[in-house]
């Protein structure tokens, strides 16, 4: 009797010890791939897979940025508007005759500013992150409308359009994918192997004790909003290149997709947990789900409902167990 209990306990404990938190995302991904290849034979074709990856490039990059913010227990709702602002600025600079590389550099530099403002208010002004970035969301979207005076600007510059057209390795490595891989590797390195990255986790876990341990909490919190805003700038440039125009209409509700990707990937809004790898998988899974919905023929409005349900399901799955 006792031994059987012991045996069961050991089985249970072994089951509990199995690092589900590392593998369930892969399992989920494989299940999704199997289901979707059954649903539609074209799903596993190279062109469809690349289509999914490329059309979700913006969200994947935003999810990286969102992860930096969320790991410190913050949130940034302004990224969707920042994507629009970045694209509009790029289109505007190109139209004024600035060369393509100078425009990109200028846009990326300018896109540091909204992040600095967000970071300043959150870190030094003690404003709730949610409110500061909500205000920025409205400000940035308004500015992008004002900048292009309401109508989209078409981008004629070949070099800008080429950003999404250049392919390496016989078409196996499009430039946007390369950018995502580089951003991913840098983010992973920073978060995993630098003291800066580990401090971000510490701040998200418990800002008080992080502070008492000599971490400059304010500076670090400030920095993640700047990183996030910069990445939103990159995402905006890639999106503008793909659409061949800068318009204030894009990026609506991207913040939700980015946060959803982080959450599906195991990040938690209370900070201090999750990995950038999980976030990448989360974004890909979220993208595949939407692709499946499209292939099955579910309309845009029911998809809104499904998206909400997926987020709630992910939140319930990971919810913090409080005593």
């Amino acid at each position: 009797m006792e031994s059987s209990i012991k045996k069961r306990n050991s089985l249970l404990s072994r089951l509990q010890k199995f690092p589900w938190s590392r593998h369930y995302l892969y399992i989920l991904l494989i299940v999704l791939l199997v289901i979707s290849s059954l649903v539609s034979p074209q799903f596993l074709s190279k062109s469809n897979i690349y289509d999914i990856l490329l059309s979700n490039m913006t969200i994947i990059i935003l999810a990286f940025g969102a992860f930096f913010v969320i790991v410190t227990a913050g949130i940034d709702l302004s990224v969707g508007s920042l994507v629009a602002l970045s694209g509009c600025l790029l289109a505007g600079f190109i139209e004024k005759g600035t060369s393509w590389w100078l425009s990109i550099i200028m846009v990326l530099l300018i896109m540091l500013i909204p992040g600095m403002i967000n970071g300043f208010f959150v870190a030094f002004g003690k404003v709730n992150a949610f409110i500061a970035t909500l205000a920025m969301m409205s400000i940035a979207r308004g500015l992008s409308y004002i900048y292009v005076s309401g109508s989209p600007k078409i981008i004629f510059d070949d070099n800008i359009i080429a950003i999404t057209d250049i392919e390496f390795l016989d078409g196996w490595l499009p430039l946007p994918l390369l950018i995502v891989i580089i951003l991913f590797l840098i983010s992973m390195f920073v978060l995993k192997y630098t003291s800066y990255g580990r401090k971000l986790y510490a701040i998200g876990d418990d800002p008080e004790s992080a502070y008492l341990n000599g971490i400059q909490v304010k500076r670090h919190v400030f920095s993640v909003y700047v990183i996030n805003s910069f990445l939103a700038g990159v995402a905006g440039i890639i999106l503008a290149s793909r659409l061949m125009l800068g318009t204030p209409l894009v990026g609506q509700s991207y913040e939700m997709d980015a946060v959803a990707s982080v959450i599906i990937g195991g990040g938690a809004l209370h900070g201090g947990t999750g990995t950038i790898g999980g976030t990448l998988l989360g974004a890909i899974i979220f993208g595949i789900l939407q692709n499946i919905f499209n292939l099955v023929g579910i309309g845009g409005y029911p998809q809104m409902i499904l998206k909400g349900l997926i987020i709630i399901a992910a939140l319930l799955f990971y919810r913090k167990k409080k005593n």
Partner: protein
Amino acid sequence: MTSEKLDRLKKLWSNYYLLILIIAVTIISSFLHPSFFTGNNLANVFGSNVTTALVSIGMFAVILTGGIDLSVGPVVALSSSLLAGFLTAGYPAWLSILIIIIAMIIPGLISGVLVAYAKITPIMATLAMSTIIRGIAYIYATGSSRIISNRAVLYLGSGKILGIPVPLIILLIYFIPCWILFNKTKIGRELYAMGGNETAAFLSGVSVKRNLVLAYAFSSFTAGVTGIVLAGRLMMGAPIFGEGYEMDAIASIVIGGASLSGGSGLVRNVVLGAFVLGLITNILNLLGLSSYFQMVVKGLIILSAVLGGYFLNKNKAG
């Protein structure tokens, strides 16, 4: 100046700053545009910002607990779409309104349960709910808006009694029980206590979870009422209604001096905050500044109100 005097000045300011703000905005605006200070325009401002004020009253209950409700805009849209649909289907106005405002409690109940019992962050729970509810509104209305021609409903939204817009009277009637709820009832005081310190409230016998669910249900119910008034004013129900309402409500609440971490603020100030926002929006409109420009201004108003509140309260704690 002695610190005592400074404290008294601060107290005076925090009691009356909204009135001062309203008067200041009114005076400046009257100089900026001749048609601002006319009975017609002011009645219009107060009539058309009733919806913001109503939504803010609802969300105030949630913000008191330290939470937030991002689904109010979609609930407004759903409520107005349902009303238009029911009226088109031939139901009597009073029955449609009754069914809808009761039904609009449901989204709030769901958000409340997710926040209170499943321990999901309010932002995420209500953000997810907001896409679900707006999706339902789009599906119900099949993507388009429906005209409302029912006289009674139109009267609720745009009628006048002795020159006073009916929506304003609805707001007053709705405000009184809300004022009592927040200031004179046990549950109201419990909401304040929960926002101040949830654990302490729980330990002193407040049923925190039940109250959380009620707060979200109240917010959603109020948004439902708002949807009816809005449908009457715009003479239609549409799934695109209520876009940005959560932002306006947050702005009104912050202007009204409530802290977003919960436990403080007054419901009357929230209503005044909504009208300050309305007056500012109105003068921007009169000056011909685009709605894009107004988006920027609204963002700046929220930031400065939050910062202002922070600096006012900073010394209070210390």
